[in-house]
């Protein structure tokens, strides 16, 4: 235990990672082999899945379909990777070590290119084309978005959503985590589970839950079966058609997302709060700080980076909210948001150009977060 630390110059440069591999062959032939080895697995998967008629046939037993898919998706894919690895073994050692990484990483890159990179580029191009995605229309789609009132309302609503929902979710989550932290272990765990529970259900399911809260029947059409109007009637008030009260109906919808997201925010922030060293809290208390001061001066500064992460995460979810609006109001009565209008335009109205322009608006708005994420990742990597 008392070994003095010896100055060790070499240990400053830790030798980790795959540096011990040989210098690689980057010749033209190797590149061709790399690309080929990347394409094999995805192509075989796609050809297999789409050429077998029985996988498309609704009459075939689904259990058979799923079993085949899982067998192919697991055993088949593993066998393909294994076969590719064997093939690479046949190469001489230097080209083999150059090609092998692409056997491992290549199929994923092909999938990413096909399902995310190519569509992102293509959507950007489509945003400058007409409703069939053919004629070039310049900035017309964007002009429509930023001049016609229904789209401006959508953008305004989306902005309000991202201002309100993340803030409320973080404040509620933080408040609840702080309160629950002061409870006994068992009570804390049960109460947190119940707050967290809505995270497990779909946005569509949550919307149905809240249909029975906001439900409205005009007078003379039977008893109120929505909870809020039940309370209104119980208090001797007239029932209110909550989902048509502009602009408040937007906030009614936001409540649903808050209900879903507080659990997430609470769980993450709770673990951050538990990570605040007891020594710091005790020191502050001994110095005479009350609980609010302890929270504001010690706890909060310590967990502020977690707060930022939770905030941006909920923000991205909120910005892309679609299901809730789609199911609850269909975007009527001034409740439209950008993500829902995007689906509405390309899927219902079959206007690919305008839909693509809305998707581009969604994407451009998250670019700052994308950049921050990449920067944060690079900073983490620099510390490894």
């Amino acid at each position, binding site marked *: 235990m008392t070994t003095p630390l010896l100055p060790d110059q070499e240990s400053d440069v830790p030798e980790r*990672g*795959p*540096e011990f591999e040989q210098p*690689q062959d980057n010749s033209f032939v190797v590149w061709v082999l790399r690309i080929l080895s990347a394409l094999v697995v995805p192509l075989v998967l796609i050809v297999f*899945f*789409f050429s077998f008629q029985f996988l*498309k046939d609704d009459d075939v037993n689904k259990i058979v379909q799923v079993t085949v898919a899982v067998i192919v998706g697991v055993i088949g*894919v*593993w066998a393909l*990777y294994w076969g590719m*690895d064997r093939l690479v073994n046949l190469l001489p050692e230097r080209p083999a070590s150059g090609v*092998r990484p*692409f056997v*491992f990483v290549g*199929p*994923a*890159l092909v*999938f990413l290119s096909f399902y995310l990179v190519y*569509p992102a580029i293509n*959507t950007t191009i*489509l945003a400058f084309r007409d409703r069939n*995605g053919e004629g070039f229309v310049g900035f017309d789609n964007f002009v429509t978005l930023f001049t016609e009132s229904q789209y401006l309302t959508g953008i305004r609503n989306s902005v309000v959503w991202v201002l309100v929902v993340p803030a409320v979710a973080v404040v509620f989550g933080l408040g*609840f985590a702080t*309160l629950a932290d002061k*409870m006994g272990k068992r009570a804390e765990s049960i109460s947190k589970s*119940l*707050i967290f529970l809505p995270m*497990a*259900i*779909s946005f569509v*399911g949550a*919307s*149905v*839950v809240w249909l*029975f809260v906001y*439900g409205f029947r005009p007078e003379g059409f039977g*008893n109120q*079966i*929505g*909870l809020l109007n039940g309370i209104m009637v119980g208090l001797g008030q007239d029932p209110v058609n909550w989902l048509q009260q502009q602009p408040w109906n937007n906030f009614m919808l936001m409540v649903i997302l808050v209900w879903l997201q507080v659990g997430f925010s609470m*769980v*993450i922030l709770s673990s951050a709060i538990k990570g605040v060293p*007891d020594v710091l809290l005790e020191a502050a*208390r001994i110095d005479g700080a009350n609980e609010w001061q302890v929270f504001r001066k010690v706890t909060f500064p310590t967990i502020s980076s977690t707060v930022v992460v939770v905030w941006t*995460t909920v923000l*991205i979810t909120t910005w*892309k909210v679609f299901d809730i609006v*789609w199911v609850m109001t269909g975007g009527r009565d001034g409740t439209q948001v950008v*993500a829902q209008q*995007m*689906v509405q335009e*390309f899927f219902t109205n079959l206007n*690919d150009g305008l839909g*693509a322009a809305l*998707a*581009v608006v969604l*994407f451009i708005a*998250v670019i700052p977060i*994308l950049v921050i994420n*990449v920067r944060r990742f690079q900073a983490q990597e620099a510390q490894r």
Partner: protein
Amino acid sequence: MTTTTETPTVTASPKREGGRFSKWPVYLSVWIIVTLWIIPALGLFINSLRDPGLVRESGWWTIFGSILDPATWTLENYRVVLQEGFGNAFANTLAVTIPAVVIPITIAAFAAYAFSWMTFPGRNLLFVIVVGLMVVPLQMALIPILRIYTTFDVTGTFPAVWLAHAGFGLPLAIYLLRNYMGSLPASIIESAKIDGASHWAIFVRLIIPLSVPVLASFAIFQFLWVWNDYLVALVFLGIDPSVRVLTVELADLAGRGEGAFSLLPAAAFVTMILPLVVFFSLQRFFVRGLTAGSVKG
């Protein structure tokens, strides 16, 4: 850290300070919040078990007058709902979800190994692109993929949805698995190399068994994501009753208005039952998976 136990401290944790007695405001407010939080779901659950006529007639809170009356309660709604498409939709959702979880995990595991333990040109740049792709909204991918699917006439087939979910899930999967695999000690991999193990052998015999926790976390996250997904299933699988999934079926029922109100609660719980079972049985892994995957785009 091990030598600080000489003086046993009485007030070990700040949690205990003040004792239970002075904490009743905390307990009271927490339980009030929790009650408010679960009332909407609880009301729906009560409605799902009520006689269909009663659901249309009165609010669920009126049961407290007749809570012991057997005529109040019935499983009829569940029976009707399961016969009217939700049984079939449940099977469809399973058919979509299982392959859509399994396929991306395999592909991502290989890629994550390459990103952590192999050298190849462009490795760092490609990984940064993966990190960036996590935030790209799904909406950016819908139109072009649907156009391609329509050209090849594969819209409305299960494989179309499996591969789409696999593609959309990959950035997060690669990111999570790579962070985990990359933090495994280099020494074990190097010593395996010195013993003559190939990359394949190291991956299959060492890395995969060591990565089971992160594979499970991602599997749970992807399961919930796909099971609860509405958008991808709506666009690529569609509303045809023979293939549509639970969320699409439920949204359709909700769109039918008041006439369907007596069936909606039971239908909603049919869509929720499996995620709730996962939630209660695997809560610890569930939280881990969810928190790890929370940045998905």
